[in-house]
């Protein structure tokens, strides 16, 4: 079914959104939209769908890189701090053992690595996702409340050079979508 809620010409669209009720048609639609040449688009699902990010042409390892760097920083920071405390700041002879008894610093080095890496994993995930972001145009679509429940959406954004209100709408309608919806900014 196609809703005919055409908007007045002077209201600019954020994009057009197709609604699906299963992940497979969404994945299929995303592949076809990418093949059609659309690049500025996003898919929305109430759960992770395997291959969906690839289908809309999104590849990123940024989180992993940040976590790796943070893990290194945490481990070296932890070890460095322990070394500095025992050798430089507060040298303390315990039963004649060497001041730099590095084996004893390993547990703390490990814990610091995990601590810094885990915080970075979550914070970099949120930051790269642009969260917290209280407002986003997709929330203007009434049906979008079900994107976190049981519906799947593909949104082609007006920023895309290939975007054309009429042609894109027809394209989305041809993807076995349940509905095609306007997204106002």
């Amino acid at each position: 079914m196609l809703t005919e809620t055409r908007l007045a010409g002077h209201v600019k669209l954020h994009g057009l959104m197709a609604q699906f009720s299963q992940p497979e048609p969404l994945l299929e639609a995303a592949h076809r939209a990418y093949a059609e040449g659309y690049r500025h688009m996003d898919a929305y699902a109430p759960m992770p769908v395997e291959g969906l990010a690839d289908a809309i042409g999104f590849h990123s390892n940024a989180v992993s890189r940040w976590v790796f760097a943070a893990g290194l920083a945490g481990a070296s920071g932890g070890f460095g701090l322990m070394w500095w405390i025992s050798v430089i700041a507060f040298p303390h002879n315990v039963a004649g053992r060497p001041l730099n008894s590095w084996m004893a610093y390993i547990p703390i080095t490990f814990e610091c690595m995990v601590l810094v890496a885990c915080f970075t994993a979550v914070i970099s995930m949120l930051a790269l996702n642009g969260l917290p972001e209280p407002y986003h145009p997709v929330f203007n679509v009434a049906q979008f409340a079900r994107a976190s429940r049981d519906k799947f959406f593909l949104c082609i954004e007006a920023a895309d050079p290939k975007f054309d209100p009429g042609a894109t709408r027809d394209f989305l309608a041809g993807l076995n979508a349940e509905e095609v919806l306007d997204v106002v900014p």
Partner: protein
Amino acid sequence: MDEERVAVLDPGPEKVIGPGHDFASVTTKIGGVVFMPFLRTPRQIFIGFACAFVLVNLFMVAVTWLFAKGVGVWGIVIPVAWGFAIVNFVWWIGIGHAGTLISAILLLLKQDWRTSINRFSEAMTLFAVACAGMFPILHLGRPWLAYWLLPYPNTMWLWPQPRSPLIWDVFAVSTYASVSFLFWFTGLIPDFGTMRDGAAKGWQQKIFGVLAMGWRGSAKHWARYQKAYLLLAGLSTPLVVSVHSVVSFDFAISILPGWHTTIFPPYFVAGAIYSGFAMVLSLAIPIRRWYHLEDLITMRHIECMAKVMLGTGLIVAYGYAMEAFMGWYSGNQFERFLFWNRTWGGHYFWTYWLLILCNILLPQLLWSRRVRLNVVAVFLLSLVINTGMWLERFVIVVTSLERDFVPSAWGRYYPTFWDIATFVGTIGVFLALMFLFVRGVPAISMFEMREVLHEEASHAHGD
């Protein structure tokens, strides 16, 4: 009557989810527990919370008395300076470990039965670690100076000793608490989004909206989210092993007979998982019944957890056997005396045999499938195992300290009322927090249940 309802809801030991569910119905069912009107909350939850709250107050009184009078209100003496505080610390932190195991290790091993119990066990971890963390601080004597344990520049230019396992413990436990919180909260973000979108009342929408931080389930969000979640799981897996190993180093690095052994780290980790799974079962069994969640937490979950308990219980049994063997094989008279004192000669010898009964003998019933599929039996065994694991720590801490090398340094330890009140009080704190958690946020991960549902459906098509 209840039996019939359970039979209808529970799909049996083969399935992780009951029949007839779709994406919307799992959401409604799990979210419904939170959106339920206040007065419609099951009666048992009110009664349970009230009982827990009484214990919270007991805890408050016990801690106030402790702060007013000092640690002398406890039964600790020289040589048994650790007493209940450290017994409880090790017990609580061990309980926490099953939560991380279920969330992280079973995620990496792709176990489908982890999904409906992971959120719940992560919350359990968080609250158990909170209870655990209080004990060393209360035990400090001057708890307001707890920050002295951290390395920070101070006018005295004093630094903690990084060669001491007690300082390793500070780092391990604080990292563990922080990472457990992150894991739990990260898992909740998409579900907060669902709650925001499903909330009927404005104030609920606002609270969940703030917590969801604008999550909208975009494919890009999910891609980064899954990466971050997997990395958290990968980092938490060695973390959980390291935490209880470090806790065991508190004992093993010393030279005291009964503590100074290399088997401690693996045996402590296995014991931690053992008691943690017992605690998950003690909590999940009543809650699934009160909120009618038998189709989401099925007999398969319960049976799998019972099997993990049996397995880890056998590792613990091996640990006990090795302790006895090494006592004899070392040829060291102090080690031999210690074992004799623990099992026969000392005045707390009965705690050892009680622990063998609770941790080794009774759990062998779990070999029988009939017992594993009997919810009441599993529930009772989980309580027995928790008691047994507490006794294990009591035996390790108290009997070793009471009798060290020189008879002139020996002593006797008796817990006081305030020891027991503080311990029972933390059980109240833990349960009260669990009751609030189950009522306030989705206790089962909704988005992961949708994934499980989708996988089950594709498998059905594949067949």
